[in-house]
């Protein structure tokens, strides 16, 4: 079992962040979201995500992927679209990894199932495995045209669990840990298409969010839109944009987790389904939840004073050469997303004076501190961004070297350069 798991500069920070987010969501989750066997789903999502982040063995990678998707595949409340999408993504990934393993074995590699062993190989004709991995990435990240499962799963399923599945950002992990190091030229040429699809999804999601009035769906569209720009940064061959993408990954994960949590807490306090047809007006009753929502929303759409401003600045400046139209896509998408977030804020917290007949507490201590920690993280790292940048700079430099054809050496690969 040696070298089956790896911890390196690329995956250590996302793993730690994900563990903290998972814990925060678990603390914040209403009791009804943990009732029965639901805690098993939470554990499956975490275990699967931790496996994907750390797996050096291709079978473990695929197992982690499927394990984290299982709670959505087995949830009978979700439509066929979500379940088929998740299954499709899992099968595509397994087949892609299987092909990679088979080609590694036929090339005489002694350990064709280890990412670190395969990463020195420069592949010729890796189009099919890459196509399958691309399909898996598109599905899991919710990128056009396989994006519709995200709003459906958010609307019908467990909001917090779906949020955790989405915030695993497996698409970005797979691009950085598998596609770029293993598939060489095949991935480099085609990743541009993937990045452009991501930018298109960013604008598409932002436009759909303009008119959607169901809070969960609206938030799902904004989350898809904001998360879709990460791939453009990762693929850009440029250290600034790669760092920007990694920071944006952190921003999207923290901010959307906080937003999902606040929405869920308002839902359980409200007691009825929130249709978005009228203002709830709970701002006076739940001022802390309202403030947490505003700060997380502001960070997500890149307003100053938060880490979102930094990540978008780096993304835009870094990807200037590789994706000139990122300079239009990001401002347009974030402008529309900001409008969507403010509209949702209005629907949930403003616009109505509620009669003081029912006493429902604002964020209680158990809820207050995890949410406060999340927004403080977004603001503190926004004011002192060099801390976050330093945490991700080593991984960004390595990824930049991988993307540069002259540096295709095994010591440059994130998967093969860690401490086992």
């Amino acid at each position, binding site marked *: 079992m040696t070298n089956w798991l790896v911890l390196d500069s690329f995956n250590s920070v996302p793993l730690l962040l994900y563990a903290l987010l998972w814990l925060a969501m678990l603390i914040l989750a209403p009791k009804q979201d943990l009732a029965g066997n639901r805690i098993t789903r939470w554990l499956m999502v975490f275990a699967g995500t931790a496996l994907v982040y750390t797996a050096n063995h291709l079978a473990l990678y695929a197992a982690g992927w499927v394990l984290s998707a299982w709670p959505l595949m087995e949830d009978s409340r979700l*439509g066929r*679209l979500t379940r088929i999408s998740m299954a499709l993504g899992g099968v595509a990934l397994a087949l892609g990894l299987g092909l990679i393993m088979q080609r590694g074995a036929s090339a005489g590699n002694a350990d064709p199932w280890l990412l670190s062993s395969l990463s020195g190989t420069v592949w010729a004709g890796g189009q099919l495995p890459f196509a399958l991995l691309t399909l898996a990435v598109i599905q899991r990240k919710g990128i056009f045209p396989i994006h*519709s*499962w995200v*709003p*459906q799963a958010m*609307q019908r399923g467990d909001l917090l669990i779906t949020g955790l599945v989405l915030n695993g950002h497996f698409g970005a992990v797979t691009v950085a840990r598998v596609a770029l190091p293993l598939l060489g030229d095949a991935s480099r040429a085609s990743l541009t298409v993937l990045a452009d699809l991501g930018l298109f999804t960013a604008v*598409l999601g932002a*436009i*759909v*969010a*303009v*008119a*959607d*009035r*169901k809070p969960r769906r609206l938030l799902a569209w904004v989350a898809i839109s904001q998360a879709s720009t990460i791939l453009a940064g990762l693929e850009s061959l440029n*250290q*600034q944009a790669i760092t*920007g993408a990694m920071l944006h990954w952190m921003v999207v994960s923290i901010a959307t987790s906080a937003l999902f949590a606040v929405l869920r807490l308002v839902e359980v306090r409200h007691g009825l389904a929130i249709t*978005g*047809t*009228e*203002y709830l*007006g709970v*701002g*006076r009753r739940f001022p802390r939840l309202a*403030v947490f929502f505003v700060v997380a929303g502001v960070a997500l759409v890149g*307003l*100053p*004073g938060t880490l979102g*401003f*930094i990540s978008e*600045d*780096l993304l*835009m*400046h*870094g990807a*200037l050469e590789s994706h000139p139209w990122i*300079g*239009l896509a990001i*401002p*347009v998408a974030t*402008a*529309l997303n*900001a*409008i969507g977030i403010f*509209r949702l804020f*209005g*629907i949930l*917290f*403003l*616009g*109505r*004076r509620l009669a003081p007949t029912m006493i429902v507490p604002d964020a209680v201590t158990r809820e207050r501190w995890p949410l*406060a920690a999340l927004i*403080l993280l977004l603001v503190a790292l926004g004011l002192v*961004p*060099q801390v976050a*940048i330093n945490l991700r*700079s080593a991984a960004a430099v390595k990824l930049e070297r991988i993307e540069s054809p002259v540096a295709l050496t095994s010591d440059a690969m994130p998967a093969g350069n860690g401490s086992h």
Partner: protein
Amino acid sequence: MDVISMSSDPMRTLLFLTVALPGAGFLVLALSWLVGVELPEKVVARVTGLIYTAAALCVAGGAWLMRAVHLPSLHADYGDWFRVGEYAFKFELYFDGVSLPLLGLTTVLTGLVAAFSRTYMHREPGFRRFFLLLHLFGFGATLGFAAGSFDLLVGGWELVGLSSVLLISYFFERQGPVTNALRVFATYRSADVGLLVGIFSLHHFRHSAALPALDLHTLDPQQATIVGLLLLLAAMSKAAQIPFSGWLPRAMEGPTPSSAIFYGAISVHLGAYLLLRARPLLESSPVALGAVALVGLATALHGVLVGRVCPDAKTSLAYAAVTQLGLIFFEIAMGWTTLALLHILGHSTIRTLQFLRAPSMLHEYHRIHAASGGLVDGGGLSLEAALPFALRRRLYWFAVDRAHLDRLLDSAAVRPLSRLSAWLGRVEQKLAGGEKLAVRPVPVGATLSAPMPEEVDVLHD
């Protein structure tokens, strides 16, 4: 241009404090709220007063020191805010004959408005929220005026916009302020795309957006036109120029002191400030320069016309401000930058006074009117009387609907976007199967096409 070294120069420190003090005020109030400490009104007001007095003294001290050493401008580099590889986002401030007067104006007027608000907002449930947002605005405005690069200016610009929108929805238990705040926010954010893309283009053409480093004269006319028109778009939105002027009366839903400092004084002049900074660039593009002049003149005429039929004091003052802002744009286009700067200073001061005075003035007018048995003459010239009746009627209809500009924006932008969004939503739902009524063309609850507030109660909004 003079670059001051990293030594502990008193000028650098004083001018840095001008920006940092309001930011510190915001952080103190925000953190005290977060840990559950409810500061007494008196403490909040006194701390605010101290902060803006100190900030104003810092501006005055810094300006005096610069004058004493015959320094026309000061480019203060405080190091990298963050750095990735070769790219560094510098925290650099730039002080000269344009930014210093505006910094002085901002600190003095914000302090005065804070002093006024201490009694005006007394015992309001959102007293602390008001002062918190006032500090956020103060930080954003001083950062915007002192920014040494367009990148940093964006930070201040966005913070002013955010605090503005949160104050418009201050009375959040009524639907009017909420829908109008959303409309203002949508206008701001849409036009801010121009600012972001403009700065992105500057980086593309010049590989820098730092004010002292930019030799904007050397952009070729085509580049200057692209960047100039994009920056103009952002300036038009912030300064309520046509066709965006409709957001200004909507913004009057906020408390009167915030209307005074935002829409009478500082926030609306940020657009003009952006154009003053971009003036060298505009000179390289006759098209952009012509567009600034045209927008300014047309807005001035629009403001005069609409202002004459406004039914309430705050809206009337808003359109008076629109008129003056149009003239300021025209002055900038004509190259009369000193006049434009003086105009900004004078207009901000008088308009703040008028906004703050409006509630008590109306109160007194009503008292005098009643005491005189309703015999008080409205006064003023009615130049319209010289026009033919048919033309007057047409003009009235045109003006009372605010030149149909909101309808125009609705039909040109809001409705097509809503329809596209709704159509995409329906396609998605068809694919996903079910929930057919989840999306409608015009979202209910919070809509971008909110009706214009007919009348604003200036006595207490």
